[in-house]
Every structure is written in C-alpha cells, then in structure tokens.
C-alpha cells in the first residue's frame, strides 16, 4: 500500500536537553526491507534518535515518519508498527522461554491461532524447539539473544529497531544472528540496527554515521570506503605498534595513523607512495617491522576517518 514510500523518513530531526543538543538537524531515509546501519560513538546521539523514532521521546523540532506515522504526533500508533530489541535482551530471566513468549504476545494482544502460529515461528527461528520449558536465565547468550529478537517480532512489525543487539555474544552466535536479520529483511521487514562492531556493519545495505548529533556520512559500505580513493592505506604489523605509529606520523607523506591491536594503519596523502620506502625508513629508525603492505580500507578505517573529520569541523 505504501510502495515506493520510505519506511522511515527523518527530516531535520532535532532534540535538545536544556542547552545540550543531542540530535542536531538529522535527515535520512530508510527504504522498505532495508538493513540500515546506524553507527556512532557512545553519546553521538544514536539512542536519542532511536527513542524518538520509537515514540518514547518527542522531537524538539523536525519530523520523523515511521511506517507512515508521525512519531511526534502519534507516538502510540508508532509502537504498534515497530519491534524493538536492545543489547540487554530484555527478557524475564526467571521465566521460561514459553512464558516469555506468551507474556509479550499478551501485551501485543495476540491470541488464539495467531498466537500459536507466531509462537511456533519464534521457537523455530530461535532454534528453541523442545526447550520451551527451560528457564531463560539458563540459556546461553546467543539463544537468549535470538529469543529476544523473536519476542520483538512476535506481532509481525514491518519495522524493527535493534539497539546494539549483538553485545556480549560469541562470534558464531553473532553470525547466526545476522543471518536472521537478513531473513527478516528478505521478508520485507525494515531493520534499523546500531552496533559497536564495525565488521558487522558490512552486513548493512546502507550505513549512516553520526557524530555529535549530526550526520557525518551516509551510504553503502562500498560508497563509504570510496572516500579513501586516492588515499591508500598501508598496514604495518610490528611488535612495538606505538613506536611505529609515532615514527610514521613524523613522515610528511603520512596523513594520519591509527592502531588496530598489533598493527598500525597509516593513511597516505597520495597514491604514489611505495610501502617499501616506508618500511626502509622504519628500519632506519631502528624499528622491527614484521609485515607491511597496502590494504583495502575497512569500515573501521572509514568510521575513524569520518569521525575525525567531523570532529575537526567547527
């Protein structure tokens, strides 16, 4: 019925708390069925934006349409169209799997055949068939997480908000979780997801990065990486990454550096710098280099670059 219309449409959305502007003139659109990544450092305004989109917080100015409903005007109508799941997998831990499902079904008014069908769907989706009577507290994190997602989509909302849904879960479960998100997306469910794990953001069709409440970058992961075109990234693996980073930063051809564990990423100012020349200079400075080479930028490189540039603007 709303073909072609964006599932979420944010226009000049602003929220102030006294003197502090948490969300500043934010505008973006999320298409129906899209998996949309919402990235930003802690305190960048992600949670405030999500709370406004879910109808919990009134915008100071600007509008947000979620599923065709103006969240500022009809916050209660929004709540029926969305599902929400947070990092805390907000389930009732002393209750069993089945009791949790029935509780959330109850507050969304599901009953009869629809309740049975949705209950079966959630158990299957979360891989919890035969474990209906286990106490939720005793479930491993990955299962609790899938159950929480199941409870969030019990009422078949067309739009789902996932606020850091993969915190504290092992890599295999994270992987399975993203498969679930993609399944939902293929069924036409729009998913807006925030995450701290930038490798996960690769699963998103488009990403927005916000910094200090403002939109700092928006695009597909590939588009965002293209901002590095003409600025190659060299990765240096070394036992003393801090010393290597300091040495690299003194070189005129290096724009900036960042540390990733035991390796250093250096963004170069032009395409014609030879990594071998850098390696020679590092060795001359008495530093051990285990490996050096040009790499494709990761989303983490993009994120740090975007945030740094946004932060340097007035």
């Amino acid at each position, binding site marked *: 019925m709303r073909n072609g219309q964006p599932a979420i449409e944010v226009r000049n959305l602003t929220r102030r708390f006294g003197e502090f502007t948490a969300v500043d003139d934010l505008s973006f659109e999320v298409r129906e069925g899209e998996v949309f990544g919402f990235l930003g450092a802690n305190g960048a305004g992600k949670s405030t934006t999500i709370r406004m989109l879910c109808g919990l917080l009134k915008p100071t100015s600007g509008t947000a349409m979620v599923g065709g409903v103006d969240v500022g005007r009809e916050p209660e109508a929004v709540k029926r169209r969305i599902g929400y799941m947070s990092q805390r997998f907000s389930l*009732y831990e002393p209750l069993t799997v089945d009791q949790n499902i029935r509780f959330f079904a109850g507050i969304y008014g599901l009953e009869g055949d629809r309740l049975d069908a949705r209950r079966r769907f959630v158990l299957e989706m979360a891989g919890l068939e035969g474990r209906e009577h286990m106490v939720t507290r005793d479930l491993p994190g990955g299962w609790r997480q899938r159950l929480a997602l199941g409870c969030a989509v019990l009422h078949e909302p067309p739009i789902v908000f996932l606020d850091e849904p993969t915190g504290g879960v092992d890599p295999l479960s994270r992987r399975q979780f993203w498969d679930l998100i993609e399944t939902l997306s293929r069924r036409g469910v729009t998913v807006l997801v925030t995450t701290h794990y930038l490798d996960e953001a690769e699963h998103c069709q488009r990403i927005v990065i916000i910094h200090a409440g403002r939109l700092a970058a928006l695009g597909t992961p590939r588009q965002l990486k293209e901002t590095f075109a003409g600025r190659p990234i060299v990765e240096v693996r070394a036992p003393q990454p801090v010393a290597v980073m300091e040495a690299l930063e003194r070189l005129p051809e290096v724009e900036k550096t960042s540390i990733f564990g035991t390796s250093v990423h250096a963004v170069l100012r032009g395409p014609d710098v030879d990594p071998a020349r850098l390696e020679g200079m590092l060795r001359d400075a008495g530093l051990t280099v285990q490996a050096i080479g040009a790499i494709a930028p990761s989303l983490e490189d993009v994120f740090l670059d975007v945030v740094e540039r946004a932060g340097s603007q007035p």
Partner: protein
Amino acid sequence: MRGVAAVAHKEFRQIVRDRRTLLTVLFVPAFILLLYGYALNFDIRDIRLAVNDQDGSRASREVVSSFVNSGFFRLVGYIHSSAEMDRLIDRGEVRAVLVVPAGFERDIANRTPVRLQIVIDGDNANTATTAMGYATAITAEASAALQAAVGIERRSPPAVLEPRVWYNPELRSTLFLVPGLIAFIAMITAVVSTALSVVREKERGTMEQIRMSPLSPSSFVLGKTLPYLALSFLSALLVILAAMVLFDLPMRGSWLLLGAVVAIFLVGALAQGLLISTLAQTQQVAFQAALLSSFLPTFILSGFVFPIPSMPWAIQLVTYIVPARYFLVALRAIVLKGAGLEAFAGDLLAMAVFSVAMLSLASVRLARAWA
C-alpha cells in the same frame, strides 16, 4: 483488558518463582514479633477519662479531682449510664471510666469497706497496664486522705480499687500486637515488593522493552499491583486466622468489614510502593526508601507499640499521615471490640483519602516517567 491480564499473569509467575521473596514475606513478621518484645515501659499521661459518679458527694468529687490532678488522667466528661460507657470506649473516645458507687461517702464515714470501679480499654495492653497502676496508686492515696478527714486511723483498710479491663481482660500483649503485625505484613508485602518489582524491571531493561510496546502505563501498573494486592490480602487474613488459632485472638466483628478495611489500607500501601518505584533507580535505593517510609512509621508512629497521645505534639502531627494509625484503630475496633462501621468511620475515611492521594501521585509520576 488483555494487557493487564498478561502483566498480572507474568508477575504472578515471577513471584512464585522467586522463593526468597515469598519466604521473606512469610517469616519476617514472625521474626519481628520475637525481636520486639513486650517488656516496654511507657510514661503515659493524659489518659482520657470519663466519670460515672453515682454518689455525687463531696468525697466522690475529691476522688475524681485526685485522678485529674495527678496529671495522668484527663477528664473528658461525666456519664450517667453504662450504655454511654460502652459507646465511649467502643469509639476510643475515652480509655478509662471511673465508677464511684452510690453511698461512697456514707460508707467511708461508716468505716465500711468501699469499692471504686475503673474500667480500662485493654486493646492496647501496655497503656492499660500503666493506667491501671496509676489508678491504683491514686485511689490508695485519695482514700487515705478521705479517711483521715473523717478521723479514721491510717491502719484501717483504705478504699479498694476494683479494676475491670475490657476486651482484653488478661492484658495479653499478643492481642494488642497482632493488629499491628497485620499492618506490618501489609506494609512489607505491599510497599516493598511493589517498589522492588517495578524498579527491577527498570534495572533489567524490561521496563524499556515494555515502554516500546503499546501497553499503557495504567495497564502496566494495574497488572503489576493486582498480584501483590492478592498476595498481601491473603497473608493478612492468614495472620489473623493464625492469631485466632494460636493466641486466641477474638474475632468479634464482621469479616466483611475487616476485608474492606484491609483492602483499602493495602491499596494505599501498594500505591506508596509504586510512588517509590517511580523515584528510585536501583533496587537498593527502592528497598531503603520503602523501609524508611513504611516500616519505621508503621512501627513507631502508628500507635502499634508507642501510644500516640504520649508523643510530643509535633510528632503527633506527623502520625496523621501514617495510614497504619487509622488502620490500627479500625482493626482493633473490629477484631477486639466487634465494633461496627460507626466506631471508626473517620479513620476509614482518612485511609481512603491516603490511598487515593498516593494513587494519584504515583500515576502522575509514572505517566511522566513513561513519556
């Protein structure tokens, strides 16, 4: 509403699974009864006294004035029939009635042994015991003075006071402590568990999850409080039944009236718990706030152990906002005296006002926190 049922059902299952809370609710009151013994001494003044002077003589007036001048009794008025005596004591308007028999003065002059009667309301065993002690001492002194005045030597037997303690003739503390204990249990289960159960949802993040759903704040509150209302109502009735079986607590009044009084009191206590839950962010803070605001006032300021008339006036003012104060009056009137609604209508009204005020405050705060 379906939402209310879903929340209530969920809450009930959580209570049943949380054995620790259930056991606390059941055993803490018994523990308190053991802990706070009965051997408490009180300095009681201004015991409200009515006098039935059947003699109307100079000697009888002398006796009455020695009661009044002692400072321990305050004369409320004279009565002329035992029906009046029943009414005044039932309503708690006087705590003691002094009966001077006809022929008192003549008997003293004739050196016949005389008897004075004092009727004391025994619903508060401590007050009654103390009042009886004072009355005995005052009578001994007054009668000695009277005998001296008519030229009787000191070694002759003085007038004998014949005390009658109504409702609780053996002055057993249990009878007077049990209604207070019921108020306690209600406070513990209602205020503390409601406050904790809402704050727990905040701490665990389930509150946020629920706020994202179309469930209204009122459905949430109703669903949360109904199981606790049922639980605390049940435990209050169980304590009364247990006290009847184990301590021979009389249940002289109407069960229906008792149920209504308990329910009105509980609604106020539950609302108080809800109000705390809207202010506190952690379970520890909620627990402490719940204790400070319910447990202690119920124990100290309700007349449970310490009689309100003996408190300094500023503290007496504070007791007016302690709902247990009214609850105890109503409860003791029903259980110990078999009194009807007319004996405590004012207290019932005060409790209802408290409950409505707390409910409104809690709803306003919750709606604000919810949005």
